[in-house]
């Protein structure tokens, strides 16, 4: 097991700032395997100058966030759908 692996709770502050919604309860559907679940349960790796969210079912990349000095890059290619709890 990779002790550096965290979960979606760890990346929530950055994501919340970008999307202006509470993200840990937001349900994501994996484009690769179709598994759905709250982003809090996604696997998160945050050692880089950013975050990678991976599916807890198939480990496919759901989303990436990279902080540069003057901007933030967001890639959501592995998320088929997001369901935001209001």
């Amino acid at each position, binding site marked *: 097991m990779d002790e550096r692996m965290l979960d979606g709770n760890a990346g929530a502050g950055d994501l919340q700032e970008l999307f202006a919604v*509470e993200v840990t309860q937001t349900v994501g559907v994996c484009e690769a395997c179709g598994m759905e679940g709250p982003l809090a349960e996604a696997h998160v790796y945050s050692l880089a100058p950013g975050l990678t969210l991976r599916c807890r079912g198939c480990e496919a990349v759901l989303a990436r966030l990279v902080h540069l000095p003057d901007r933030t890059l967001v890639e959501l290619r592995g998320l088929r759908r997001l369901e935001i709890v209001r």
Partner: protein
Amino acid sequence: MADVRAETPRARTLTFDLPGWPGHRAGQHVDVRLTAEDGYRAQRSYSIASPPGASRLELTVERLDDGEVSPWLADEARPGDEIELRGPIGGYFVWEPARGGPLLLVAGGSGLVPLMAIERHRRAVAPEVASTVLVSARGPEDLLYAGELEGAAVVTYTRTRPEGWTGYARRVDEAMLAEAGPPPEARPRCFVCGPTSFVEVVAEALVALGHHRALIKTERFGATGG
């Protein structure tokens, strides 16, 4: 920061006065950002230890020797220092009285912090909800909130134990969860927080015992980075 107190040789509780703080829910965390004089910034997440409604916000921070943020918070920071906080964050790893019980709170090391906010909240507003707190600590000198939890938590020590200790002295496993916690039929709301490997083992053991996956909420923190 208004106040600081030692919890263990490696951990301190920091108390903040936060004018305009919107309030928080039990189990949420904040991000702490430190900026060095040269502009280098480091950010880490720390769970809130104080229950909702407390007049001041409390964070308990354990020092990780190779960390970038925790050594400063756990050793250096002084009342009067100003620190950048972002939060409250999270809605998944959260308990409110309306979510009911019983509660099974399982902590590895400083994973106890958000569970303590939940337990304190329960005591304050819903003491009729049954709760089991199971804490795994390396040794007595690593157990957070020892005075407050005396007689109110099941403790297991994984490395060193007090003389004459007759309690658990091993890592949390299925048998321990079955003995110490409510049975799956009671449909306990399970909250598990600790290092990644601890959370994986405990969550899988709970599922193996027959607990509902949907009632098990987990929060992992890393062995490095702090």
